[in-house]
């Protein structure tokens, strides 16, 4: 029940919240509850890992010769 690889943090939190609500209402049969619980734990792990990431670098939006936009690392001594 690992979350989809490209799941965004927002999607993971939304899904986690929905699982907690379902379990909180206590109407899910035990076997199903465990499947939800395990998914919830995976989501929580995914979110925690994401929270521990640190991007640190700043990028700059720039245009190439053809006007195509891209984010490139920003030099610290910029301008």
């Amino acid at each position, binding site marked *: 029940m690992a979350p989809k690889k490209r799941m965004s943090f927002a999607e993971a939190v939304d899904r986690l919240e929905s699982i907690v609500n379902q379990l909180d209402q*206590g109407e899910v049969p035990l076997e199903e509850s*465990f499947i939800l619980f395990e998914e*919830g734990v995976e989501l929580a792990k995914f979110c925690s890992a*994401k*929270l521990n990431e640190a991007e*640190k670098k*700043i990028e*700059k*939006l720039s245009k190439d010769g053809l006007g195509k936009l891209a984010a490139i690392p920003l030099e610290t001594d910029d*301008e």
Partner: protein
Amino acid sequence: MALIEDKILSVTELTREIKLSLENEYSSLWVEGEISNFKRHTSGHLYFSIKDTNASLRCVMWRGTAAYLQFEPEDGVKVRVFGDVTVYEKQGAYQLRANRIVPLGVGHLEIAFRKLKEKLAAEGLFAEDIKQALPRYPETVGVVTSPTGAAVRDIIVTLQRRWPAVRIVLAPVAVQGAGAAEQIAAAIEDFNRWGKADVLIVGRGGGSLEDLWPFNEEIVARAVYNSDVPVVSAVGHEVDFSICDFVADLRAPTPTAAAEAVVPDAAQVRAGIARAVKTMSVRMSEQVRRYREVVRGFTTHYGLRRIADVVFQKAQEIDDFERRLYNGIRAMASNRRGRVDRLTAQLTALSPARVLQRGYSMTRTYPGERIITNSGDVKPGTKIKTVLADGELLSTVEEIMPSVREETINEQVT
């Protein structure tokens, strides 16, 4: 002789008459001109002239009044000065004692601001119901501001402090002077074409109305209005309002506040996730406990032999569930610290392993590994396996003795 007959005045008398006449005639008036020879004396008084093509007027503004000036006067600025003409008798000079100085350029800007605000408001650009909600967890934040200065630094530091995983993409622009408005508008459009920013911060630090002016231009207002990416506007300080602020999806009082509005605080989110895990775990253990009660009910009260197999299977399922619950919590713990450690400890206490550590044991048939909950399940000679906290014992049943309380036996299932 006229010289004799005419009344002869002393210099003092004449000067006093001029003084009375001028000061009565020319008080509380506005005069317009360009500042020259501006000097701020160490005493705090301001000395300057205002002039136009043909004439010049000396002016003074006393320190007490000067303290209330809303701008920094300098040579060449066209102003309107309000005050009274006074005569300095010792030098036979007249001057204007200034009470207010209003820069003319800014006066024009103020009128332009009001006019554009009315026009755009009438068009519905400021309507509350078209404002977009900000994403709760943006992955990429676009920043449109000057690459130098305090604003960009405040924004970056605050974003990274609150949400270290955030990706920050800066569009460096001029935020004052000629062409700034066009650059700001183009950067907002570029971010929309690029499409990867979840939210934009557009702004700059404090400055004069003229400095902030690009954010009051229609081209910027239109770009913000047309942006599909939500825009947070942070122009100047708390007291400064710009047209850009009115059009934006959210107006932040400062660049730092804009960054705070855009990303959540990771510490709070972390706590929220810990709470979610706790709720899930508590609910699961409750459910397992309820389930166990049901199973126990069957075995103790009715001892229904026919369904004994089903019951044992259920008992085993419970063990299995508890193991999964425990593993789930442990998996979390390997990744986390603090709050979750306490939570883990709490939940570990509920786990079968901990129960075994308290001196209970679990007995299974051997082979078969079915949990023995009833003395009738075995007979002398049956091999059984007893699970302890740190190992297992293989034994053979010698004798079956009637139980003191059935409850005691069932307790072993835990």
